[in-house]
């Protein structure tokens, strides 16, 4: 190859052209640096020294929570938080000590809050104390010159208007934990956006937890220029927050508060549901706690007190606690017996106060016996002997089958976490769980709702709703618009059978029935069933003189009106004595609120 034939001069001329272009471009860029560094340098130096351009999160207000009638249950109020800008203090420990003294809060708490944000850059203010009152805010403003590192930020504080009422339904908020973050990162969408950031508050229990996604909204952001004291000078740009959706609950505040009042100082649960669709109208678990404590940031001693309380206020007794249903179970026994043709509404059993089955003596609660009893009277007066014989005739397998058909033994599916399923015992269960065979005598105990059988109050409410609505097993729910009629399973029980059971339960509320004296409301048609669960054998469990811990548990399940019922109420009163004396009167208060009947003390409920 010879150079001449390559048109070398043309080639080199164009290489020189490129060289000139590169040199000119370098000069242009050099002038750019001269302009930014030399001409505007002082301006940028000032910006840099005050670190004035900041990116701040605009917290989305969390969705409001309303009751069925639109009454406000949970809202947001302004909350003042103390932030510290670490780049503005020479001695961070000293600053925190000053703040802890001024707020009269433990220094460790402030340190712990700061430690959560070590990943953040120095100039980014970090919240160290939440929910300051106005007096505290004023004191920090007064020392702003000596302590430029402190800033006050206005955020949202969740306010549970009724304090401990409905706490177990509503739940509470807590800061995103490391495990929440990991879960969120794993679930990050295509766009790589992680749902939470550290420091976010998310629902930890109850509706706040289950519907967190809808309630939380999407945070926005702002780029702002601030002065050396952190005060806003200019907003450089903003991306609005998208507020959370409001949620309308199925709860009815009037019923809820009537139930809350009736359960005051008692331990147990009350559930009221609409049997037609499973909408929960009231759900009480007592004792309760104040979710506002969590919103403000719970103190360690408050938290310890909650954990160490014997009666476990954090537990939702309506669905996290299972006990033997006692005689309320006779409702399901009656339905099973009729459907299987083991009994008829008119067939009778003679009760002499006790009976001998499989060589053991099983007693009725009435020592003198009930005489010849039909189904209706057996339910109305809760005759045990009638149901001992029914249980023997049905056998444990069929009892098990019908119990499960009525929804016992598994969670109801209400939208609250940690619901338990209770136990429907049987031979297979006995082998699997206890490792020994089923004893025939146990069948007789289960027939009157004792023995290994346990149910949660919400399961009993759901089973009662199925009796009241003609055999549909609805799913209890707390948020409006969640019901799906197709979800309701249909029981393998004829409505004529259920009508006979309803008649028996109506008789409970009539003169001669177990709950007439304690729960009858003039002019209101009701049906019910009492239940008493023995806690200690050989103790007079219903006497006021018996120590509280040894007294029987009281159950009452009910619906009203008898046909086309609109409300089911279940009461469980731990160590409440008898079902008729300890539980039925509480349900009566709920029905009075439902029907708008004056309370005895003259107040409208």
């Amino acid at each position, binding site marked *: *190859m010879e*150079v001449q*034939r*390559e*048109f070398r001069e*043309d*080639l*080199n001329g*164009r*290489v*020189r*052209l*490129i*060289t000139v272009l*590169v*040199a000119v*471009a*370098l000069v242009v*860029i*050099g002038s*750019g*640096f*001269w302009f*930014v*560094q*030399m001409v*505007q*340098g*002082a*301006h*940028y*130096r000032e*910006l*840099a*020294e005050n*670190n004035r*351009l900041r*990116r701040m999160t605009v917290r989305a207000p969390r969705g409001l929570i309303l009751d069925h009638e639109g009454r406000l249950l949970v809202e947001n109020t302004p909350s003042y938080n103390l932030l510290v800008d670490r*780049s503005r203090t020479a001695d961070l420990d000293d600053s925190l000590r000053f703040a802890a003294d001024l707020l009269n809060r433990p220094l460790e708490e402030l340190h712990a809050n700061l430690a959560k944000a070590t990943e953040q*850059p*120095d*100039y980014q203010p970090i919240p160290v104390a939440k929910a300051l009152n106005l007096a505290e805010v004023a004191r920090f403003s007064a020392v702003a010159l000596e302590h430029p590192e402190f800033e006050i930020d206005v955020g949202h504080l969740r306010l549970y208007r009724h304090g401990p009422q409905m706490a177990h339904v509503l739940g509470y908020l807590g800061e995103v934990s490391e495990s929440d973050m990991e879960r969120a990162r794993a679930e990050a969408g295509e766009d*790589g956006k992680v749902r939470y950031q550290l420091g976010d508050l998310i629902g930890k229990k109850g509706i706040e937890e289950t519907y967190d996604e809808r309630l939380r909204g999407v945070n926005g*952001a*702002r*780029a702002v220029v601030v002065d050396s004291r952190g005060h806003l000078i200019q907003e*450089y*740009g903003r*991306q609005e927050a998208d507020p959370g959706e409001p949620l309308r609950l199925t709860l009815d505040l009037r019923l809820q508060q009537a139930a809350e009042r009736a359960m005051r100082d008692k331990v147990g649960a009350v559930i009221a549901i609409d049997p037609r669709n499973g909408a929960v109208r009231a759900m009480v678990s007592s004792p309760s706690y104040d979710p506002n404590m969590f919103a403000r940031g719970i103190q360690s001693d408050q938290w310890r007190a909650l954990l160490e309380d014997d009666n476990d206020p954090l537990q939702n007794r309506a669905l996290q606690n299972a006990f033997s249903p006692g005689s309320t179970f006779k409702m399901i026994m009656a339905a099973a017996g009729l459907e299987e043709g083991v009994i008829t509404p008119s067939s009778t059993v003679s009760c002499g106060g006790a009976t001998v089955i499989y060589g053991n003596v099983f007693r009725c609660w009435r020592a003198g016996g009930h005489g010849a009893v039909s189904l209706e009277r057996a339910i109305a007066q809760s005759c045990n002997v009638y149901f001992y014989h029914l249980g023997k005739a049905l056998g444990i397998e069929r009892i098990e089958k019908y119990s499960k058909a009525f929804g016992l033994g598994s969670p109801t599916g209400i939208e609250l976490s940690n619901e338990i399923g209770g136990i429907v015992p049987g031979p297979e269960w006995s082998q699997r769980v206890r490792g020994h065979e089923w004893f025939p005598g146990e069948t007789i105990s289960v027939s009157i709702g004792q023995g290994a059988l346990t149910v949660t109050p919400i399961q009993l409410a759901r089973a009662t709703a199925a009796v009241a609505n003609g055999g549909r097993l609805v799913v209890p729910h707390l948020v409006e618009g969640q019901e799906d009629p197709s979800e309701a399973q249909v029981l393998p029980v004829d409505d004529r059978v259920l009508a006979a059971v309803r008649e028996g339960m109506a008789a409970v509320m009539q003169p001669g029935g177990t709950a007439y004296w304690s729960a009858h409301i003039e002019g209101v048609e009701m049906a019910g069933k009492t239940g008493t669960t023995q806690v200690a054998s050989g103790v007079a469990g219903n006497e006021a003189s018996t120590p509280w811990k040894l007294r029987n548990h009281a159950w009452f399940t009910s619906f009203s009106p008898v046909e086309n019922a609109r409300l089911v109420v279940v009461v469980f009163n731990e160590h409440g004595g008898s079902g008729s004396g300890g539980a039925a009167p509480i349900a009566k208060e709920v029905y009075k609120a439902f029907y708008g009947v004056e309370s005895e003390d003259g107040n409208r409920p």
Partner: protein
Amino acid sequence: MATALSLTDEPQAIRNFSGLDWALLLSALLLTGIGVVTVASATAEMPINFLPRQALWVGIGLVLMVVIAAVNYRTLVDLALPAYLGGLGLLVFVLIAGQVGGGARSWIGVGSLGGQPGEVAKLTTALLLARYLSSVNKRHLEIKHIAIAVGIVLVPMVLLALQPDLGSAAMFVPMLAGMLLVAGLRLRFLVIATLVVAAAGAGLWTFGMQDYQRERVYTFINPAADPLGAGYQVQQSKIAVGSGQLTGKGYRQGTQSQLRFLPARHTDFIFAVLAEEWGFLGVMLVLGLYAVFLINALRVALRARERAAVLLVVGTVSLVAFHVLYNTGMVVGFLPITGIPIPFLSYGGSFMLLNFMITGLVLGIDVRRYANA
């Protein structure tokens, strides 16, 4: 001439390095040293110690530089076609089996370091382009020559765009432009090419770009429109650069960089760290070193023995020049932010290796300018 892998076949002058362009080599080494020091400052607060890794990358780069300088470039040009196809094979392999890194499937795991075959493809494509365009021995290129050259470049570009790594794909354009210009582009083709690029840009904008990429362009046009995203980065970069003023804040004293304002401060924004800590004087020194490197590299093209060598130098040096100009222009706020590192300064990666390979190639071409091989 396939035996040129052996040094002993080369004339004495080459073995003595008597024709070596010391200014070119020295400017590259000085820039690398400044890069190591600046990366150490930028990453001082990071949990990982970047210094040993950076040293490893530099070490590998220097070895590659010497190896490539030692190999006769003519051998490389002779092997251009298989090399080009191998490069394409790597890109296809990455598309199928690559690890996802930074949103694009562009990484092949090589121990803990990883390499981006896109960089290899740039070099192999430059070889084939130089070979092809040098075979067109005319004063001006004809349309079919241009079309073939564009085709050679388009295949790896499309494969990279599929990853999707548009930034890397775009880097072929300055390389192609430099080579075509020098190979003999008529003025009217230049005008047509400009129009074609504009049309392709519009097409890319409409069909080929992802939302975040469009946003970056918007942000560039109007930074205040997106102060929370890329606009924030531009602003922070300008604060870092501007606050350096004449003499800088001193080594490891750059508050903006040390306080983590700057994104990607050890890679794409390393020059902002340098500008903050060393001031306008430091910027002038480093821009001066780049000027020495680029101008000397282009002078190698002027005195190279043959057309293929001229084109190879111009194409690869155009690529380096584009990176230098774009990155510094971005840091000072002239150009939209995109992931383009700066040669020799930015932390590690296969891009650093590419720069050393190009340096080796240019030096190797230079020492063989008198050889009668």
